[in-house]
């Protein structure tokens, strides 16, 4: 038994340590240095990278963007996904086809989705701008102004991910015991009451899970930002990860970039622990 364990466990643990745990530990160490990645880190500067980071307006905007993406995921994507799930949970003609269509964007790479919508929102050649012109408006350069560019990013996120959350809700809805509805109906509950007092509470575990995925996904959003806006215009549509990439990797400021990584790590871990403690402890 021990021999088998000694052969079976170490390869996975070693690889995990080498490429996940050690780099995370190194990020914590590098974050205290001013280092360009060559040679060994020598210039120890304490928490200066962190101070610089929190004073950096672009980073603060990026962190705020992450927060706004979370708000939009919960405020727009979740209701849309739930609505579609309620329409499609039952076995009806066409239900499966609609489910597949709504799920389709989820399997595409974020990079492809971002680039497709860079075209859709392109002021010169994109359909949105062309339609606006055919309706008598001027050309619409959505990606050229920070506010509209960020709106575009939210649209792409909802477009790509609502189908995944819909599938979670459909699975949740199908798992609800039908007799609960029969009992509620016998007690005279109207459709609306059944929704609020049976469907939603029964669906709560799946809703919590879906919100969890939305937040984790929002915190690591990167692939979509680069092709869609590249973080621009004026570096106003960055997320924490695209900020890390552009300002850490792009300028080989390994120490500064690592500080971003540590902040991202701390936020993610605190959130994951806190969320599971507070909301998911019964499951």
């Amino acid at each position, binding site marked *: 038994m021990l021999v088998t364990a000694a052969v079976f466990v170490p390869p996975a643990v070693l690889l995990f340590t080498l490429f996940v745990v050690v780099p995370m530990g190194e990020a914590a160490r590098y974050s205290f240095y001013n280092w360009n*990645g060559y040679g060994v880190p020598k210039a120890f500067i304490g928490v200066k990278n962190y101070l610089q980071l929190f004073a950096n307006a672009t980073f603060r905007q990026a962190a705020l963007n992450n927060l706004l993406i979370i708000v939009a995921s919960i405020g727009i994507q979740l209701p849309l996904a739930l609505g579609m799930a309620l329409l499609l*949970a039952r076995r009806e003609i066409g239900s499966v086809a609609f489910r597949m269509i709504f799920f389709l964007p989820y399997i595409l790479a974020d990079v492809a989705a971002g680039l497709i919508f860079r*075209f859709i929102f392109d002021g010169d050649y994109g359909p949105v701008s062309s339609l606006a012109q055919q309706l008598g408006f001027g050309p619409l350069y959505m990606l050229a102004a920070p506010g509209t560019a960020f709106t575009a990013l939210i649209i792409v996120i909802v477009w790509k991910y609502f189908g995944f959350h819909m599938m979670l809700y459909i699975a949740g809805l199908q798992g609800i015991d039908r007799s609960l509805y029969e009992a509620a109906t016998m007690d005279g509950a109207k459709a609306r009451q059944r929704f609020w007092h049976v469907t939603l509470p029964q669906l709560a575990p799946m809703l919590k899970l879906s919100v969890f995925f939305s937040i984790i996904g929002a915190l690591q959003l990167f692939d979509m930002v680069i*092709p869609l806006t590249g973080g621009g215009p004026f570096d106003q549509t960055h997320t924490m990860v695209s900020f890390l990439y552009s300002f850490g990797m792009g300028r080989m400021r390994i120490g500064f970039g690592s500080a971003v990584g540590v902040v991202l790590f701390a936020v993610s871990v605190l959130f994951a622990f806190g969320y599971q403690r507070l909301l998911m402890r019964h499951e």
Partner: protein
Amino acid sequence: MSELRTLQSPYGLVGRDAKPRRWATLDLYPPFRLTVLLLVAAIVLLPLLATAFGGFKEVGELRTNPLGLPHVWHWENYWAILSGARYWQVLGNSLIVAAATVALTLGLSSMAAFAFAHLRFFGEQFLLTYLTLGLMFPAAAAILPLFIQVRDLGLLDSYTGVVLPQVAFSLAMATLLLRNGFRQLPSELLDAARIDGCGYIRYFLYITLPLSRPILSTVGIIAFVGSWNNYLVPLILLNSTALYPWPLGLMDYQGQYSTAWQLVLAFITLTILPAIVIFVAAQRWMVAGLTAGAVKG
């Protein structure tokens, strides 16, 4: 996460539902229901169709005829890409990296999961918690030190240098999923095999693995899609365009032909085509794999 409720039957998500749960749904007036669904479906599909059709248009027609079918079908945009080496090279690179990632992920995580599911050994609980840490934070947080690490190992700009970190990132989820799957096999099987003198390794190879095909394919699908669509890891770790997987190749192509949208659109269409074809051909498995994987993790 491992304690979360699981789907009773992931395959119930599509195709035949076990029992219609008629009260759990929203009862709209049917034509209204259909209108809403068609509208959402149009919003989902139009960007994809505009992209695919745009690849057949001349650049000026993108402006005058944004959403319609091309007036003249310009196949040459697509032919130029299909007859060139670049497209096949980026797809080939993605396939090599994804296949290696899946094989290594399945191999390493199934071994570890077997040990965690059936063996009692010193540090078992600690090691399992240790691996679970990998689910807690995004890979991007440690991406700069990862670059340094891979560089110092001399693996920068190689398939191996991309595959190993990708496997490492997918191990946590894979091991947890497989451990839960392996535990659901009846324990009498193991007892009987032990009494008959079957060793753990033979039991693993000839009983556990063959009986666990559904969960293995779920883990395989997740690892494959994750690798196929991965952008950040190869972006950091590769320099040579000859090694670029398709997301990097696509961005590279867009950078080169940024003014010729019709070519970029054709290139996007062709690079996402394999994923769409496989999705349409194997919907059940893809949906079940990707959602059940997320839920059961």
